């Protein structure tokens, strides 16, 4: 069962990842990804960010993505925590963790979950920049990253 949380509060990476491995002896690999707020985007300084989401659909979409990963790779557990609300440069935005018996499956599933999250989970970033507030535009490179998992 995937663990999926959408929250305003920060998370403790070590503690959250321990939940995936605690009490188990069949885990040989734990792959994780942490996304952070950058202080610059597309050449503009970013002083703050607001993350909006679609409550209900977001959790469902993240759960679906984790289940899709579990159907493609032999993984044991998966976890996605994504923050919403007001964030500042350096803040953690997202944590993905995947466990498996061997590293290859965990690495691949973790990357897949992030690529699909980027293109399918209903989150939207608004940046406060030197030129005012601006909604972040979707990147074609994110579609390319997600599409390579097709077929």
């Amino acid at each position, binding site marked *: 069962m995937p663990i999926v949380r959408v929250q305003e509060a920060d998370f403790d990476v070590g503690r959250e990842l321990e939940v995936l491995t605690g009490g188990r002896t069949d885990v040989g690999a734990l792959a994780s990804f942490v*996304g952070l707020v950058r202080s610059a985007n597309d050449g503009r300084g970013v002083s703050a960010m607001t*993350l*909006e*989401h*679609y409550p*209900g*659909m977001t959790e*469902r*979409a993240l759960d679906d993505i984790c289940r899709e990963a579990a159907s493609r790779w032999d993984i044991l557990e998966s976890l996605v925590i*994504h923050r919403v609300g007001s964030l500042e440069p350096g803040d953690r*935005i*997202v944590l993905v963790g995947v466990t498996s018996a061997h590293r290859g499956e965990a690495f691949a599933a973790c990357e897949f979950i*992030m690529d699909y*999250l*980027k*293109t*399918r*989970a*209903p*989150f*939207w*970033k*608004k940046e406060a920049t030197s030129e005012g507030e601006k*909604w*972040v*535009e*979707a990147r074609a490179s994110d579609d390319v990253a997600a599409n390579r998992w097709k077929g």
Partner: protein
Amino acid sequence: MVTLLYFASLRESLSCSREQVPLAAPTATVESLIDHLRSRGERWAEAFAPGRSFRVAVNQQMADAATPVKPGDEIAFFPPVTGG
């Protein structure tokens, strides 16, 4: 009646986050709903102009123009997602 939700830049440009509207026909689709929204005036026509990039979800599942909608459905309109 169906519930319409708008998110992010679409919510801001339409000054609307949520509304309830009656379905004009029993065989409505996402496309017929968008046609109706476009007819509301310049701001709406512009937001849903054919070249504009927006996404639609019906009952919290990604949908497309041909997806049918029925009374009680929740239909959400939003720009391409930018999380992570």
